[in-house]
């Protein structure tokens, strides 16, 4: 019995195939009727003489693995082979635990495609289309359970098994909350038997997927929805009678303790997800996107485990310089560095698993993994990331993930070390069942054979040299190439009688223990019989392919583009000497003055200052002003408008800052040091704003202006009533309704605040007890922000144009006891400046925009000056990434149109916005003790001819015209280097895609009739509809 299954020894041809193929080991199911003869398979195998890599740390040489009925029963160097075992001699072979892919949708039905198109002003879908006792939002799909949807899919299973995988975590990749994932094996068995864990994980993402509901229509809306759902689920536990049955929340709670996996797909996404987790005590496992190496320190700080895909960008065809022109350095650099992502994770000691997700074809997996190794990923780590780590994260390490007794017999048999380029996977065993991957190469057939062809006229001998399973030559006087193929069993061979002859001898046969034999036709078409016998085995040379040398790469810069810093600049002690200093203080404009900066602060302002340790900047002939502050900006954010509802005070710009935005750098070049990043104007009560400092290179947290009074964006007029469309169904549709939205929202907020207060009252006699109001009152993130406004803890900046709406808004504020802190845009502010002054508002406006929409037909460039004359604190803002670079000149227009003094004009872009943002104690003027946010100008700062030479934030020079020159040269050199490298890739025959222009996403307020360039995608045009 045993002999039958012995593998061929020496040069005997492989016969391992017989018998093994159909072995089914898993138990049949008792409840299932049998058609035919009941057949309960039982099988014991022993794999002997193998190099067994039991896990990433343990390798056993000449070891034996015993498998019985699908499970591993023994493994080791001293293991007895049970006598009932079918023995597989694995001499020269390696055995590894099969891989685990924990980010798969194997066996899941495809999610329906969402039918969404851009249609600004089109109808809004305000409620979920999902029928039944579910929650309100269609993208919260907690009721989805992978286990219920799972249907084994042999074609996909095979493609994964061929790469060495045996187990996957599968879930339906659809929606923001995606329900539970299941762990299944890739066995070709009834699903009942392949599920290892019914509910292993819960899944989340930033993508709405198939949801057609309008909300959330932005990234920050998505984050707000997740946060609110965490809160609602907690509240629901004790308030079921108030809510009724809500299956979405119930399922959320039921599965809450499972590992939670978040598909972030991006470095900033990872940090955003992690932040949500931190708030609710959840440590997500984060599915990465491939660019995380660009912020590896931040990734480590998240303490998360990651799932890394191995999809690298393809090289582009940049031979044509006019095509290359539009491919950014950042895209080329990412192409160069993306394969180093996994290695960077290893180096930073961040736990990670690897996945085939995001690959166009699972077949690319091994090649891409080897590329990751070329770039520094160790073999040990790779194996760990494919076995131990995912198994541990999924809580299934007792069952799979290593070769240990008691675990499922999920392992692969390979020809050599699994990650070597020439290694092939022969077999992939899943739950004790063998799946052939590449068995024909189990034994090499290479060598010299004597072929004897016997026909009516007798026998002729030929010498055949087999080079591989598909190449062979006939060796005679001349070497003649034969057509040859051997698939492990059947063989085909044809060759011409001689080099001159075109008529072939065609042979067909099969292999058995001592060679090949079969039938065929000779050159004349006469029938022949033939045999082939090995005469001399080819000597096998050991696999000489080594992990290649790590390629030379560029450096990561912060941010990851041409203008980023490779090393972040440091605070300096700076002495700016002999400049015209515009203090914005009672000293006014000081000629020939010095300013000393230390530790990020202005230390002194005066004449003839000195400091031994200071770097001296000569300000002779130059002007020094406080840094420009833009009250109204939309840069540096991933989304700006959550327009799906009229009240979205729950959303926060802070949740989706984008520190990579090149406009940060461009605006530094125009002297901007702080920007107030506002929500857009798509709805009446928009989102919470974020004041940032332009600390180029910092991450999202690093950009934030610390300890400021938080603000929120409101909007009135045409945008919120959606005048540009004809199909609006979202309340309001008129300025009458806009006012009522405000009344309703604050009425609800007041009632809510009262309810919370009531719930906070501790019943008499329960001294010392702390009431938790959220046990009964549903905490509402939307209303929380409005309560803050009423309590003067949050301040409004309100997009507004027309005098009627301005007055109406102020009256709502009066009723609820709060002030509209700032009216922004406020192009008709000059008409009601007296009322605004009485109400206590600030005004932040444009210098000279008008007539681009109906509500600005009365806008005048004298607006700022007139409001100032009436006594308002007035700022000039940009609302525009280009104009923000020229805000000093925009302020100067009030000198031209309204006769404003030059010092007052400059204050409109420095001190005045600082006042309306409540940060004038720290920025906006040049005074000892204030933040060293300064600009050194080449000329009078209100002049069209003035250029910012240095822009300083917190005493750090973030923009310097000299350094900028150097960067331009460097960008040009780097671009040249990378273009050459890509061209080389093309020449070396690697696949390349067409050069595709690097697009830039631009957020605007939706008030624009302003083109930003050839490669800008207006995010508004995309988001507004949702």
């Amino acid at each position, binding site marked *: 019995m045993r002999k039958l299954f012995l593998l061929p020894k020496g040069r005997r041809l492989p016969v391992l195939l017989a018998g093994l193929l159909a072995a089914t080991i898993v138990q049949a199911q008792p409840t299932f009727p049998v058609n035919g003869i009941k057949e309960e398979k039982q099988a014991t195998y022993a794999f002997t003489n193998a190099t067994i890599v039991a896990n990433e740390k343990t390798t056993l040489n000449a070891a034996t693995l015993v498998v019985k009925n699908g499970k591993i029963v023994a493994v080791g160097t001293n293991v007895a082979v049970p006598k009932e075992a079918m023995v597989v001699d694995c001499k020269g072979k390696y055995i590894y635990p099969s891989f685990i892919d924990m980010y798969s949708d194997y066996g899941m039905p495809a999610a329906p*495609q969402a039918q*969404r198109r*851009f249609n600004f002003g089109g109808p809004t879908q305000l409620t979920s289309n999902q029928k039944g006792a579910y929650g309100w939002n269609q993208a919260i799909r907690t009721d989805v359970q992978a286990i219920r949807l799972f249907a084994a899919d042999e074609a996909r299973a095979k493609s994964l098994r061929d790469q060495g995988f045996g187990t996957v975590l599968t879930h339906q990749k659809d929606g923001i909350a995606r329900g539970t994932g299941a762990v299944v094996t890739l066995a070709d068995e009834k699903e009942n038997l392949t599920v290892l864990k019914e509910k292993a994980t819960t899944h989340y993402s930033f*993508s709405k997927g198939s949801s057609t509901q309008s909300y959330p229509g932005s990234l920050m809306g998505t984050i707000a929805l997740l946060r609110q759902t965490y809160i609602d689920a907690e509240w629901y536990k004790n308030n079921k009678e108030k809510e009724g049955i809500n299956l979405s929340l119930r399922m959320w709670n039921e599965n809450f303790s499972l590992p939670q996996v978040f598909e972030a797909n991006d470095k900033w996404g990872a940090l955003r997800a992690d932040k949500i987790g931190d708030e609710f005590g959840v440590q997500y496992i984060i599915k990465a996107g491939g660019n995380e190496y660009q912020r590896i320190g931040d990734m480590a700080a998240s303490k998360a485990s990651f799932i890394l895909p191995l999809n690298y960008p393809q090289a582009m065809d940049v031979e044509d310089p*006019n095509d290359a*022109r*539009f491919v*950014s*350095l950042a895209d080329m650099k990412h192409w160069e560095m993306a394969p180093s992502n996994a290695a960077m994770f290893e180096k930073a000691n961040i736990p990670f698993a690897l996945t085939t997700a995001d690959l166009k074809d699972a077949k690319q997996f091994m090649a891409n993994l080897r590329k990751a190794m070329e770039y520094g990923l160790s073999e040990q780590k790779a194996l760990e990331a494919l076995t131990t780590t995912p198994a541990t994260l999924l809580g299934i390490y007792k069952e799979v993930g290593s070769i240990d007794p008691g675990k499922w017999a999920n392992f692969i048999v390979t020809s050599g070390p699994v990650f070597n380029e020439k290694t092939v996977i022969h077999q992939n065993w899943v739950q004790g069942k063998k799946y052939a991957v590449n068995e024909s190469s189990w034994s090499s057939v290479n060598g010299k054979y004597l072929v004897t062809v016997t026909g009516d006229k007798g026998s002729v001998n030929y010498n055949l040299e087999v080079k591989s399973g598909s190449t062979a030559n006939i060796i005679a006087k001349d070497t003649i190439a034969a057509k040859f193929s051997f698939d492990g069993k059947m063989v085909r061979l044809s060759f011409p009688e001689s080099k001159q002859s075109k008529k072939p001898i065609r042979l067909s046969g099969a292999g058995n223990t001592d060679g090949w034999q079969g039938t065929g036709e000779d050159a004349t078409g006469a029938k022949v019989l033939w045999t082939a016998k090995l005469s001399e085995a080819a000597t096998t040379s050991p696999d000489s392919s080594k992990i290649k040398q790590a390629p030379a790469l560029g450096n990561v810069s912060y941010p990851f*583009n041409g*203008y980023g810093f490779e090393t972040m600049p440091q605070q300096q002690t700076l002495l700016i000497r002999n400049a015209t200093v515009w203090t914005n203080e009672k000293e006014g404009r000081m000629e020939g003055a010095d300013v000393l900066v230390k530790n990020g602060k202005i230390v002194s302002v005066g004449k003839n200052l000195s400091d031994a340790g200071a770097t001296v900047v000569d300000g002779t002939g130059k002007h020094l002003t406080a840094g420009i502050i833009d009250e109204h900006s939309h840069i540096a954010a991933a989304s700006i408008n959550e327009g799906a509802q009229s009240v979205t005070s729950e959303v926060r710009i802070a949740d989706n800052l984008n520190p990579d935005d*090149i406009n940060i750098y*461009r605006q530094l*070049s125009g002297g901007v040091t702080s920007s107030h990043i506002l929500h857009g104007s798509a709805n009446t009560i928009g989102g919470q704003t974020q004041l940032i400092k332009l600390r180029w290179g910092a991450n999202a947290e690093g950009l934030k202006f610390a300890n400021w009074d938080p603000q929120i964006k409101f909007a009135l007029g045409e945008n919120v009533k959606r005048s*540009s469309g004809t199909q609006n169904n979202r309340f309001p549709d008129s300025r009458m309704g806009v006012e009522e939205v405000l009344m309703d929202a604050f009425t609800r907020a007041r009632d809510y605040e009262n309810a919370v207060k009531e719930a906070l009252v501790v019943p008499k006699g329960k001294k010392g007890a702390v009431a938790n109001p959220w046990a009964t009152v549903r905490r509402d993130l939307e209303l929380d922000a409005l309560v803050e406004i009423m309590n003067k803890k949050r301040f409004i900046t309100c997009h507004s144009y027309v005098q009627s709406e301005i007055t109406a808004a102020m009256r709502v504020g009066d009723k609820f006891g709060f002030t509209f802190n700032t009216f922004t845009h406020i192009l008709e502010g*000059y008409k009601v*400046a007296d009322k605004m002054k009485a109400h206590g508002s600030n005004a932040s406006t*444009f210098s*000279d925009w*008008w*007539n*681009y*929409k*109906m509500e600005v*037909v009365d806008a*005048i460039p*004298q607006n700022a000056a*007139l409001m100032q*004359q*009436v006594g308002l604190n007035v700022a000039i803002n940009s609302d525009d990434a*280009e*104009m923000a*670079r*020229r805000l000093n*000149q925009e302020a*100067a227009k009030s*000198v*031209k*149109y*309204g006769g404003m003094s030059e010092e007052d004009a400059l204050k409109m872009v420095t001190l005045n916005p600082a006042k309306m943002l409540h940060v004038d104690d720290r920025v906006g003027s040049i005074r000892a003790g204030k933040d060293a946010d300064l600009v050194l100008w080449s*000329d009078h700062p*209100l*002049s*069209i*001819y*003035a250029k910012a030479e240095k822009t300083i934030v917190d005493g750090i020079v973030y923009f310097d015209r000299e350094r900028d020159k150097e960067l331009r040269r460097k*960008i040009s050199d780097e671009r040249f280097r990378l273009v050459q490298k890509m061209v080389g890739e093309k020449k070396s025959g690697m696949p390349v895609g*067409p*050069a595709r*222009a690097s*697009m*830039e996403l631009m957020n605007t307020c939706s008030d624009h*009739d*302003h*083109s*930003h360039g*050839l*490669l800008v*995608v207006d995010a508004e045009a*995309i988001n507004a509809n949702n």
Partner: protein
Amino acid sequence: MKKRLFKIFCGLLFSAAAIGQENIYPAAEYKGLLFIKNATVHVGNGQVLNNTTIQVNNGKIEKIGTDIAIPADDVKVFDVKGKHVYPGLILSGSQLGLVEVNSVRATIDHTEIGEINPSIRSIVAYNTDSKVINTLKSNGILLANVIPQGGLVSGSSSVVQLDAWNWEDAAYKMENGIHFHMPSLINRPNPFAAFFGITEPAGDPVKRGLEQVDKVKAFFREAQSYANEATHSVTNLKYEAVKGLFNKSQKLFVHCDIVKEMLVAVDFVKEFGMDVVIVGGSESFQMAPLLKANNIAVILSQSHSLPTMQDDDVDQPYKTAVSLQKAGVLYAINDADGQTRGRNLPFNAGTAVAYGLTKEEALQAITLNPARILGVGDKTGSIEIGKDANIVVSEGDILDMRSSIITHAFIQGRLVDLTDKHKQLYERYKHKYGK
């Protein structure tokens, strides 16, 4: 003389106090002599003349000099001591008078249905009562080229002067050029298309664009053959409309930006011998000498723009003019901004000074150069003898908002009213607040 100045001053005051623009009147034709004296004259061709007198007769500049005797008769004399005198600025590409409020469809008349519409004429829709017009005069812009949009060949533009009762009065040069909006030849994917469910058209967008260009070329070939025919049995209005391109009485304005598009535009010089003007031209700095070699002029649409690529020099759009200047290309600086409606033309030019032009070069880019490009260089664009007296007086440097305060403007020798809607509303609310 003083009396006369005082009267004009009163006239200005009167109209400024009025509400609504209905009583801002286009100036009547002025016959006879007019003098502007003690002027610092920025000629528009690079020259600056100090302490100079300009003599205007019947709307034309008759004499320029430092020793011009001013007769004691009843003539208009403007003493502009300490001020700067410039040729009227020219907005070389605009939808002025074709669109009032960008967001209100009923006020928009710049686009027609169809792809090849050369017979469409912008001039017939030019609304002299647009409230925008007076705000431009207030900033020294006295002429504009009014351009139709849409499709591939959108029609003809005309040059208008900005002080007129109706379009026939306004027309300064009719149908000076035909406008071709080149389809984009950039492989410009929408990276968010998949995420947001937007379907992008299949295939190579560059190839698609070139097919469109071929369609336009085929049209011009037919039109050329038609133009070569002595008589026509059937009249084709489209062919008729482009006849001027083949005898160079009209120019072909090609709206495009990137190098590949501009290279394709060169075909129209090579194959058809047309005078070609690139409008847009944000990437023209990449191939300025090649444009010069083909005698192609450029209208830079918007200097106050962001760079195309994140890798570009952060100030690239500010200095593109400098590359054209160095290469000797005939170019104009324009202001196509939709939110300020063209009034920042002098400041777009001023920015180019900060990045490398001389002030007089920048001035030329908004006066004499556009006049030449638009085919009115013989009549205007500079303060030179024989030209129309299209003249602006500014308190200081017209290119810098610190000092660019326009005190007088003359079109064809007529002193025009510089009141505009904005000044009127300003006065109205100063009145309210007692300021």
